[in-house]
C-alpha cells in the first residue's frame, strides 16, 4: 500500500489478473485435501483449470439466451467487488457490489424457469439473507476498531483486529461456510452433485456459462479469504497462516457434517452468527462509547 495515487489501481489490476489463478489453485487444493480426507487420491492440483478449460471448449447450451447476460454480469460484478476490495475501497461498497453480483446469479437461475434452478435460486436467496447481516456486521466491526470503512486503512492498522472481534470472526467463519458452498450449508448448489436439487442454481447453465460461474467463484474465494486477512492484518505472516487454517477448517467442517435444511441455515446464521456478532459489537460499542468516550 504505497501512498501513490496509482497504487489502488495497480492493486485492483493485480487482483483481476491473479485472483483467478489463486482461486483456481485454492479450489484445486480444496479438492485434493477433500479427497485425502476421504481416503482417495483425488484429482490433479490443476484440475479446476482443466475443468474450466474444458467448459470453454464445450457448446453453449442455454434455456434462454438471457442467461448469458446474467452470468456475465455475475462474473463482472464479482470481479469488480473483489477489485474494489483489493484496491482498498470502502467495505460497504464492496459488500453492495458483492450482493449485486449474487443477485445476478440468482436472476440467471430464475430466468431459465426450471424447477431445480428455481428452487436453487430461492435457496440462494435464503442464503444471501442468512449471511448478509453478518457480513455487514463484519464491516461495521472493522470500522469500530479502526474507525474506517476503507480496506486500505484497515489493512494498515496496527491493531490486532481479531482480538477485538473474536465473535465477529467466528460469525464470519460460519458465514464463510455458506459462501464457500460447503456442507453443512451447501443448500443452493454444492460441489458434489448428490443433492436433492441436482445442481441447484447452476443446474441450467452449461459449457462456457458454467465456466464463467466457476471463475466468478474463484474471484469470490480470494475476496472472502482477503476479508479473513483483514482480521489479522497487523501481522501478514500470521494472517496467511490464519487463512490457511481457516480454509482447512472449512474443508474439515465440510467433511464432517451433513447438509442441514434451510431453516437451520437461516437460524444458525441469524441466531448464532448474529448473536455472536451483536454481543461482540455491543461490548465493543460499550467500551468505545461509554467507557472510553
Amino acid at each position, binding site marked *: 500500500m504505497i501512498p501513490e495515487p496509482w497504487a489502488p489501481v495497480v492493486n485492483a489490476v493485480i487482483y483481476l489478473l491473479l485472483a483467478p489463478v489463486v482461486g483456481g489453485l485454492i479450489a484445486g487444493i480444496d479438492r485434493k485435501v477433500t479427497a485425502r480426507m476421504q481416503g482417495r487420491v483425488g*484429482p490433479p492440483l490443476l484440475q479446476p483449470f482443466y*475443468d474450466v478449460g474444458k467448459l470453454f471448449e*464445450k*457448446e453453449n447450451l442455454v434455456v434462454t439466451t438471457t442467461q448469458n447476460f446474467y452470468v456475465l454480469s455475475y462474473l463482472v460484478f464479482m470481479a469488480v467487488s473483489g477489485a474494489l476490495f483489493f484496491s482498498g475501497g470502502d467495505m460497504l461498497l464492496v459488500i453492495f457490489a458483492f450482493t449485486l453480483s449474487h443477485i445476478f446469479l440468482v436472476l440467471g437461475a430464475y430466468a431459465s424457469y426450471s424447477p431445480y434452478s428455481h428452487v436453487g435460486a430461492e435457496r440462494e436467496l435464503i442464503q444471501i439473507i442468512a449471511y448478509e447481516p453478518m457480513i455487514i456486521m463484519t464491516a461495521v466491526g472493522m470500522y469500530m476498531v479502526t474507525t474506517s470503512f476503507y480496506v486500505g486503512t484497515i489493512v494498515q492498522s496496527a491493531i490486532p483486529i481479531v482480538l477485538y472481534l473474536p465473535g465477529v470472526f467466528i460469525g464470519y467463519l460460519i458465514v464463510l461456510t455458506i459462501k464457500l458452498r460447503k456442507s453443512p450449508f451447501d443448500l443452493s448448489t454444492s460441489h458434489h452433485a448428490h443433492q436433492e436439487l441436482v445442481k441447484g442454481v447452476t443446474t441450467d447453465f452449461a459449457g462456457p456459462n458454467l465456466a464463467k460461474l466457476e471463475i466468478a467463484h474463484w474471484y469470490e474465494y480470494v475476496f472472502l479469504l482477503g476479508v479473513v486477512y483483514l482480521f489479522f492484518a497487523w501481522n501478514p505472516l500470521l494472517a496467511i497462516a490464519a487463512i490457511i487454517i481457516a480454509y482447512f477448517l472449512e474443508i474439515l467442517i465440510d467433511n464432517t457434517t451433513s447438509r442441514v435444511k434451510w431453516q437451520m441455515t437461516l437460524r444458525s446464521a441469524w441466531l448464532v452468527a448474529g448473536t455472536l456478532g451483536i454481543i461482540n459489537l455491543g461490548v465493543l460499542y460499550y467500551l468505545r462509547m461509554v467507557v472510553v468516550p
Partner: protein
Amino acid sequence: MTYLAKSPWIVHYDGSSCNGCDIEVLAALTPIYDVERFGIVNTGNPKHADIFLVTGSVNEKNREIVKNTYDQMPEPKVVVAIGICAATGGIFRECYNVMGGIDKVIPVDVYVPGCAARPESIIDGVVQALGILEAKRKAMNENAGAAAKPAGDAR
C-alpha cells in the same frame, strides 16, 4: 491433449438394469477406484456432463428419459453403454418389455461388457471414450468453421 480429455464429467442413468452395473459405476467413484483421479466428476446433470454412462437396457418407459437426457447434453458428448444389458439387452433380451440395448435410442460410442461390468472395466471404457470425445470436438469445431464461412461469404 486438450482440456476435454482431462476433465470428463459424467452423468449416469440407470435403465432397465439389475442394479449391478449401476452400483459398480458408483463404486468407481469411491476411494478404492477413485475416478476423480482422471478429473471425472459425477455431475448427475446432463447439462454439465460430457460422458453419458448408461447401465441397463431400454424399455417402454425409460426410452424417452434416455433420449431427453442425451439431448440435454452439450456437444461434444459421448455415450458409454455399461454392462451387457446396455449393449444388447443381455440376459433380459427376450423380455417383453425390453427393447434392447441403448443403441436402439441413442448412438453409443463405447460398449463395456460384463455382468456386472467391473469398475476397472468401466474406467477402461471411459478412458476409451475420451479419445472419441476428442475426435468429436475436432469434428464439431471444423463443422462450426465450415458452417460459419459460407455464411460470412454470402454477406
